[in-house]
Every structure is written in structure tokens, then in C-alpha cells.
């Protein structure tokens, strides 16, 4: 953590580039942004994220910020939360949103798809037991709908419940009234979002240009 120097040169970028697939320019841009966010410190803390103005309107801000501090998203089989992240972790989390390269085998495509979905899954599964329980799901949905201003909390709850029931009916099939569906496993999650073309949608254009001056 924080292995990189404050002004890394090209050589330091190269293994990051290999690990994440970003180009040197993109890493350079991201590094600038990192320093801008952390006020030239080595690490980023949660308060730094909270300072981003544009993020203030985002209903699921908390989930997203947590995702940056979640060891599961660092590609290293860790678990639990961290308090601060270095540049490497920052880039690794970002790399979940990298557009896929044009020439990909079917297998690679499946792998990216899995990774991206895993990221999404982790955002729901806060206690890291591999299952999105109703409570967890409700929490996310309530947050998600909280900003719309017109839906009451009760409605959000209903919607979450209905979605959960839908999931149950899709993944388990017919349920007897006294059966209990404990939550969405990752396998179910994959199956449910089969039609959701995540590999071509969960992407962001990372420019080679530096736009940090425009966007505070």
C-alpha cells in the first residue's frame, strides 16, 4: 500500500499498466487526479471522497466509496475494509470500468463479465458472506431511491421486496409458502443478469487528456 512514490516515473507505471491494462497516459492522468483528490498525500481516505462536489448528488455515494475501500475489489483475495488506499488500489478499482479491448476471445469476455459483475455484487453484499440478503438488498434500494424525493421509504421497501421475490421465483422456481429464500448468491446474480450486456456497458472512457482542470 502506498508503494508508489509521489512522483512516479514511467518505470513504476509499467507494472501497474500490466496489472490493470491502462495505458501510461491514462495512468498519468489518473495519478494527477489522485493527487488532486488526496491533496498531494500518499493515500486517500473516505473524507477525501466526500469532498467531491459532483458526488454529493449521487444517491449511492456511500456504496461507491465503500467499494474503493473494499479489499475484495483489489484483485488480491483479501477481505474486509481498509481505512486508506494508495494509488495502486485506486487504479485497480478503476480498472473494473475499463473498456474491453477490441480483440477478445469468448473466454476473456466471460472473465471480464464475471469480474465486473463481481464488483457490482460486492457493492450489495456488505457483510461478505457471498449472499445478498433481503436486508442488504433493501438497504441498497432504499439508498438508491432516496434521492428521487417522491418515493417514500415504505415504497422503496416494497420495491426491494418485490424484486427479491422476483429473484426468488426466477432462481428457485415455485416456492411453497413456508420455504425461505435466504438471498441472492453470486451464481444467481450471474444468471439473473444474463441479458444485461455488462461487458459493453460497464465502461467509462478514460481519456488520455488531462481534464482535471475542468472538473473539480
Amino acid at each position: 500500500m502506498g508503494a508508489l512514490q509521489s512522483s512516479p516515473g514511467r518505470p513504476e507505471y509499467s507494472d501497474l499498466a500490466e496489472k490493470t491494462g491502462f495505458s501510461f497516459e491514462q495512468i498519468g492522468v489518473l495519478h494527477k487526479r489522485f493527487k488532486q483528490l488526496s491533496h498531494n498525500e500518499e493515500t486517500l481516505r473516505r473524507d477525501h471522497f466526500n469532498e467531491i462536489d459532483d458526488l454529493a448528488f449521487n444517491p449511492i455515494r456511500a456504496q461507491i466509496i465503500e467499494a474503493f475501500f473494499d479489499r475484495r475489489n483489489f484483485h488480491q483475495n483479501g477481505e474486509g475494509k481498509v481505512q486508506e488506499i494508495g494509488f495502486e488500489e485506486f487504479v485497480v478499482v478503476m480498472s473494473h470500468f475499463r473498456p474491453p479491448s477490441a480483440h477478445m476471445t469468448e473466454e476473456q469476455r466471460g472473465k471480464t463479465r464475471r469480474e465486473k459483475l463481481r464488483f457490482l455484487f460486492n457493492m450489495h453484499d456488505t457483510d461478505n458472506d457471498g449472499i445478498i440478503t433481503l436486508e442488504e438488498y433493501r438497504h441498497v434500494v432504499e439508498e438508491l431511491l432516496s434521492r428521487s424525493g417522491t418515493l417514500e421509504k415504505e415504497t422503496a421497501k416494497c420495491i426491494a421486496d418485490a424484486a427479491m421475490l422476483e429473484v426468488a421465483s426466477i432462481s428457485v422456481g415455485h416456492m411453497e409458502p413456508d420455504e425461505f429464500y435466504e438471498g441472492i448468491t453470486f451464481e444467481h446474480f450471474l444468471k439473473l443478469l444474463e441479458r444485461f450486456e455488462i461487458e459493453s456497458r460497464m465502461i467509462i472512457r478514460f481519456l488520455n487528456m488531462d481534464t482535471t482542470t475542468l472538473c473539480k
Partner: protein
Amino acid sequence: MLRCGYALFWLLGSVLLICVVSPVKGEAVVTREGSHLKLSESSHSNESQHGHSSNITGIPIISFKWHHVETPYLVAFWVLVSFLGKLVIEANHHVTSVIPESALLICFGFILGGMIWAADKVQTFRLTPTVFFFYLLPQVILDAGYHMPNKLFFTNLGGILVHAVIGTCWNAASLGLSLWGCQMGGAMGDLDIGLLQYLLFGSLMAAVDPVAVIAVFEQVHVNDVLFIMVFGESLLNDGVTVVLFNVFDAFVSLGGPKIDAAEIIKGIVSFFVVAFGGSLVGLVFGLLISLLTRCTKNIQIIEPGFIFVLGYLSYLTAEMLSLSAILSIVFCGMCCQKYINANMDENSVQTVRYAMKAFANGSETIIFVFLGISAIDKVIWVWNTGFILLTLLFVLVYRFIGVFFLTWILNRYRLVPLEFVDQVIMSYGGLRGAVAYGLAVMLDENKIKEKNLMVCTTLIVVYFTVILQGITMKPLVMWLKVKRAAVTEVSLLEKLTNKMFNHTLVAIEDISGQIGHNYMRSKWKYFEENWMSWILMKPSARKKQDQVFDVFHQLNLKDAMEYVTEGERRGSLEFVRNENSIIDFKKKSESESFDINNANMSNDHGAMSTTSRDPIPSVSLEMHEQIMKAVREAEAINAHHLLDQHLYKSRKQHRHRFSRSHFDINRDEKEVQEIFQRTMRNRLKSFTSAKMGVKPPKTIVKHTQKEQQQKMPNGKSMDKAKTSYSGDEGSEGDSASGYDQSYMRATYRAGAGIENPAFMPDLDPMDLLQIPPWLGESELDSSMVALSHRAQVDLPRTPSNLRRLAPLRISTRSTDSFTLENIPDTQQMDSDQLQPPPPPPRPPRDDGYV
């Protein structure tokens, strides 16, 4: 099916011949009457003169005034003929699955044109630019704009614009220059066409036609991105075409030498003015519509009209200002769709949707039919093999080159590049259509000597692209394995994930400091939600503006519907309702007792109870109640609707005609009584016919009383209730009229739920003056649901039916109503025995039961 289709077809043909011949006859009459009119192809001029020339000799009782109604009559008739043509074509599914409908309609037009030609020796009818651009095109385009998937469109706007602007210019220039080059090379003989005229021709041929594209792509179902690229291009390139056409038209009038740099710059400037001006007019009108629909609450019946009228006005306004009319109406539709859907009543929204489709589909049909008819005209056919074939070739080849080149550039900037097969389909989907033909007909014959050659070539290109490319499109799409559009079903989870997802993307862009699509979209959304919606949307409508909630609502409705259908399948709606209330009751008491047991728990018992009662499936239980709640409301509506449809409907519907603005269900007492009595009669008939098998009630063979009494013991072996009418099997049929009268006398309490006449059959003649027990309970009035139609038909008279209806008895119909039903039979029997008793032959099926 096929033969029926042919029969219809010939019927249609003969009807058409009559239609064609009759104007000729009319004109012949005019000539004979001594007016010095010749048989002219424009029948309009006859009309006025005929009016003057006829001298009145007396009051005619019947006069045949064909010319009085000619124009509207012909219009209406042509519409009818086109629609019938479509009907015939659509009847043959195995044909339309191979050949697209548009191609078939054009062929249908050929046949019609041939008939007219045969009858008239001159083509009386053809698609004129005025009719096409003013009366046929606007609604098709308005529909396209109104149903445009906005998000998809704006996501791909860059690509669409590049193709629409640069691609079209490229098509026009390359076609014009190449043809000119070929002429210079001597490939097409002696033609009097200059370079500018070639460019003019190129510009009218350049545009991909929205009508043709919709018609063909609609049946192919390619993936969304591909569709929006082709379709968006076809809509937007109109601005370019109109400008190019006007500029070159002006250049041709000016003549080559007078064109200088200033004129060319003016031309380029005018492009931007026309395109952006047109869009702006559309936006203004769109906002106007949205604002208007905010306050149309009191004139709900005509509020859908605003959309059509203002949409059309936006088209005309743009045309008046010589801006791009098509762009104007497209943007008008796109801009207002969200707000009017939110502002207007649900019914009005449906009306707009259907009316829009009806207009668009109708005029599309007419356009294609008339494109076919226009071909059968000797005047326009000027054959020049070189010119025509070269045009065809260049149109196709340059389209491919343009699309591939532009997509190659675009793909360097696209996140998800367009694949090779997509590009092939995009190029191949460059269909030309009626717009090109309309523009070609508008050419000035004085300035362009070879106008007819150009019209004829345009028609050939149109036929080639629409018919040949249209037919081969589907096989090509299959063969290339183009990604098809997924059949999407609304799913709450997907909707939620989608929403979550969008927010995540925005957040990541925010964090990484990139300004991308998502960033822009979120900013726009913020602006839109806070400002646009606030101004353009009703406050009440703003609340419902949540897609997730929308889906939730839809799914709930669907569930409710299924619930009702399920109940109906089992025989009665009451079944559903009853089960409902039982469950509800159980749950209520359960949670109450639970509350008492855990009195020390927190007040938030909804959440608490689920968590503490963990082994019980929390999801399903909670949800069950939620869904039930929604079901109950929706079901009331549904059940009502169902009853309205299946039961009695004649009178209520007559009523609508008296009032244009209210759809109240009538509460007139006399009418209510009439409904009641009629229903009774119907019910009675169905009782008796159900009982007697299929026999009508009056065919009753006379039996002796003895015979009847002999039967009694047979019946007595069964239980008492059954005996009481097993001996009375047929007498009831005879007494139908008597029954009827007693019902007629019935005084009925108005307002006790007459809208639901199915309750009535349970009334018995002897009970008529007192309120039946189940109607007496006031709250049942709204909550009680009668037997469904199916259950009502075979009524509980025979013992077997009795058994079948056993589950019904636990439903709202109380048991005493059931036993009551048997009482009249016993009484009836007594009275029948006083009259000449007509005991029936026992229907054979009854023997089995005894």
C-alpha cells in the same frame, strides 16, 4: 386462408373497376349534356362548370350528384382500397414472412395502376408532392419522433449525425459527379443534362427514406444500436437533402456562370439555418404541447387532439419558414413525449398512442400503394439503359463506401465499435423511398429537360431498394448472424440494477475526473428534473416519475391480472376474492396476536416481526401482503371491467352517443329496470336451454300427467331438493313466458348495483318484493362479485351441476340463496299441474344421474 385471400382480392379488384369506371361515366354525362367540356384528366375543373350548366326543370326527387362529392369521395375510397389491400396482404402470413409488406403494397399498387390504365387509358391518379408532403408524410414522421427511444438516440447522436450529414453529402456529390463523368465518357448516349443538374439529381437520390426504412426494419428486428443508426440517419438526413436540393435547384436556375464563392457560402450557411432552425421550431412546439397538456384536465376528451394539431402546425410552420419540416416534427415528437405522457390522463395517452399508430400506419400504406400506382403511366417512362443502370450501381456502391469509411472513422472514437456485419446491414439498409420520388416530381420541367427520365430512374431505384433489398434483407441478416434485438421483459431487478449501474458510472467518472457521456447525462438529468419537469409537468404527475416505481406498478398490475384470470379459470372471481380475504384475515390476526405476545417489542412491528420470526419465510410473507394490497385495488377494476364486458352491454353503450364529453355509467331508474328485466330474460333463456340441452324451450312434447307422476318416485330416491325438480324437468321451459312476466313486474331497487346485472338471476319471483339477503348487506354491494360468464351459462339445476358448483357455495353466494333457488321450482310445479301440464321427454343425459 389463401383462397379466401384470393377471393377477397378479386372482389376488391371488381369494386375498384367500378370505382374507376364511374368517374369516366360521370364525365361522359357532362359531355353529353352539351357543356363543351372534354374528357380531361383533371376532374376537378368539371365540378364547378357542371354546377352552372345544369338547368333546373323541377324538383328532382333523386339526383345523382357525383361531381358534388367527387373529391372527398375519391379520397375516402382510395383510403379504403389501400386499407383493404393491406388487409388482404396481411392475411397471408407465409407471404409476408418472406416479402416485406412495403414491397407487397407496391406490387398491389402496380395492379391497381394497371386496372386504372386499362379502364382510363391515362393515369388519373398519382402521388403528387403536395399530397405526399402535406398529408401523408407528417404523421409518419410524427409517430417516429414520438416513439423515439430518446436515450438510445442521444447516446448515438454523434454517429447518426456524421452519417446523416457527411454521408448524405458524399452520396449526393459522388453520384452526381460520377454520372456526369460517365456522360462525358459517352456511356449513356445523348442527354441534355449539365453538371449542376446531375448534382441536383444526386442530391434528391442521396437521402435514405425514413418511411421505407421503418417499414423494412420493423420486420427484421435487428439490434437497437444498428436500428437507431439507420433510422436516425434516415430521419435527420432530410435536413441535408432539403438544403442540398434547394441549393442546387437555385444554382440550376441561376445557371453555371453566375455561381460564385459568395453563393456557395450562402448555401453552406443556409444548411445550418435550415437544419437547426427546423429543430428549434420543433422544440418550441414540443414545449408548447407539454405546457398545454398541463392544463387540459377539464377537456380530457379532446386533449389528444392537441398533440396532432400542434405537431402538424410545427411541420407547417417550419415549411412556411422554409426550414426543414421533417426535422421540426421529429423534434417536436421527441421533446414532448415524456411530458405529455406524464401530464395527460392514462386514457388519453393510450388514445394518442393508438391514433398515432393508426395514422402513421395508414398513410404508410397509402404511400406505398400510390408509389406502385404512379409507375403505371406512359408519360414518365423514358428509358435510358445507361443512365438507369449506372444510377442504380452508383447508389449502391457509394452507399457502401460512404458507410464503411465513416464508420471506420467513428469506430476509433466509439467505446463499443460497430462490427463489420453491422456496417454491411447499415449500407444495405440505405433504402430510397417516397421522399426521393416526391422531390423528383417537384423538379421544374422548364429548367430540366430530362425530368421524366429522372422521375423514372428515381422510381426504379425506389422499387429496387424497397422490393429487392427489402426481400433480401431478412435472409442477409440471418446469414450474417447480425445481433438481433432481445425480447425484453420488464423485470424489477434489472431495472434496479440498471439504475444502480448508471449512478455507479457517474460516480466513477466523478471520482476519476473524466467528463464523459455519463457525466453529461447526469448533469442534463439534474437540470431536467429540477427545471424542465417543474415547468412542464403537472405537480401531481411529477410524483409518479420514477421508472423503477413504474415497473413495480406494472408488475403489480400484471400479477393482479393473472390472479383474476386464474380465478376465472377456476370458475368464479369470488374464489379469488374469498381466498384473498381469508388469507388477509389470517395474517391480520396472526400479526395482531403476535403483537400482543410481544408487547414489549418496539412499535415498528412491520420490520421487527419479520426479523424475529426468522424461520418463517420473511420475503414471501411480507411480499404476499404487499401484492395482495395492490391486487385488491386492481382487481376491483379488473373484475368490474370483466363483468362489463361479459354480461349485459347493450343499453349502456347506447347512452354514450348522447354525450360527447362524459362517459358516465347511466343511473336512470327506468333504464336500470329495463336492463334488469332484459337480463332476467336472457338468464332465463340460458337456464332453460342449459337444462333442456340445446333444444329451444318451446318444443315440448305433450305428456300425460300420469306419466309425469310416474316419474316422481324415480326422483324420490334421491334427496328432496333434487326430487322437487327432477319431475319438473321440462315444465319450466314452457312457463318461460310466465316467469318472464313475473320478472317484468319486479320492482327493483335502483342503485343497488345495477351495473352488475349478474346479481339479478338469484332473485326469485316470490322474493321479489323483499330485498334478498345478500343484497341487503350494504357493503356487499361493491365487494360482491358474481359468477363469471362461464359459470353463469351452465347453471346449477341438474344434480351434476350441483356437485360441480359445490366449491362455489363457500363463496359469497350464501347457502340460503342456493336453496332458495329450488323453491320456485316446487311452486312452479304446482301451478303447472293446474295448467295443461306438459311434461317433457326426459333428456337422455338425465337418466344417468338418476
